[in-house]
């Protein structure tokens, strides 16, 4: 006790120990000390309340990221997709003739089919030629001989006559 008032150490002791505070008779009779003590106690209480509220705000941010962060991420995803489209679009369009070539692939197959058919026809002709006794190219000649042989005896007989 400093004169008639509490020293700072005594004030601190009262602030630290709730039981000592209740036992203190001086705070009840000394208005100046009571006022100073209440002021100090109020400052500490406000600090406590503000610290708890602020820490809780930090905890919420730490435990659960704010949804506000999701919107920029979604926007960035959209921007990235648009950029990808811009880059990939011309490349795809540039290579479109390749797709046309792929589409036109059945045409050579048709040509192959036609050539196969003509080959088959040729082979059948050759086969027919081989199987026949007289080659096709010589058929006109044999036909002339046949007609000549058919008419020959008559003409010779006429000549003989």
């Amino acid at each position, binding site marked *: 006790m400093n004169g008639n008032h509490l020293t700072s150490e005594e004030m601190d002791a009262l602030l630290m120990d709730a039981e000592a505070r209740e036992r203190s008779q001086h705070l009840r009779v000394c208005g100046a000390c009571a006022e100073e003590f209440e002021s100090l106690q109020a400052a500490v209480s406000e600090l406590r*309340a*503000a610290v708890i509220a602020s820490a809780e705000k*930090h*905890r919420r*941010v730490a435990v659960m990221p704010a949804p506000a962060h999701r919107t920029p991420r979604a926007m960035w995803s959209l921007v990235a997709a648009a950029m990808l489209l811009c880059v990939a679009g011309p490349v795809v369009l540039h290579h479109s003739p390749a797709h046309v070539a792929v589409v036109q692939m059945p045409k050579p197959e048709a040509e192959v089919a036609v050539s196969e058919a003509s080959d088959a026809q040729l082979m059948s002709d050759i086969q027919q030629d081989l199987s026949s006794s007289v080659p096709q190219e010589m058929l006109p000649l044999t036909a002339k001989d046949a007609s000549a042989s058919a008419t020959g005896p008559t003409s010779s007989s006429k000549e003989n006559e």
Partner: protein
Amino acid sequence: MMPQQSLQSGELTLAENGSESVTPFDDIAAVHALYEERIFRFLLLSVRDRDVALTLTQDTFLNAWRTRANFRGECSIATWLMYIAMNLLRSHTRTESFRFWKRVGDTAVSADDLKSQLPHPERSAESRLMAQQELEQIWQKVEKLSRPQRAIFLLRFVEEAELAEIARVMNMPVPTVKSHLYRALDHIRAGRETGSRKKERR
């Protein structure tokens, strides 16, 4: 030996089935739900980095569950958790002291944060401004306290822990805790008086 602290209403109690192996930490989810906020707050104010505080909070509960067999109920659950958190904090600041100081201010509780969280918003603008200034001065003084003083101050006046509990958490005798607390309060009071003198000059 630490005197047994009475558990507050709403807190977990030790199982009374006679089985020594059963501890409150067996139901770690319930313990986490009750004490996570308090442990995170203490670590955030001590380490001054939100992400590190969250990691250390998770480590605190993990260690509490792993060492649950060592819990004999000689202290409260909160004191036990604070003790583990304090040990983790010591390890962290010992190994990463450089980064610890470097990160300060980025995701820490700042004076501006506190001013915006000041209670009683219905008071007058002048009164509110004065309270904000006083809060800022006190917080600046708290920030400048040494680590033990700061931790003890926060445990006493933010977490409202008893001196014996603080002694258990800090692993130091009660008179040493009192000595740190006296110095911390003296420092803060000096800053407060300086602030009030400045106001009077105006």
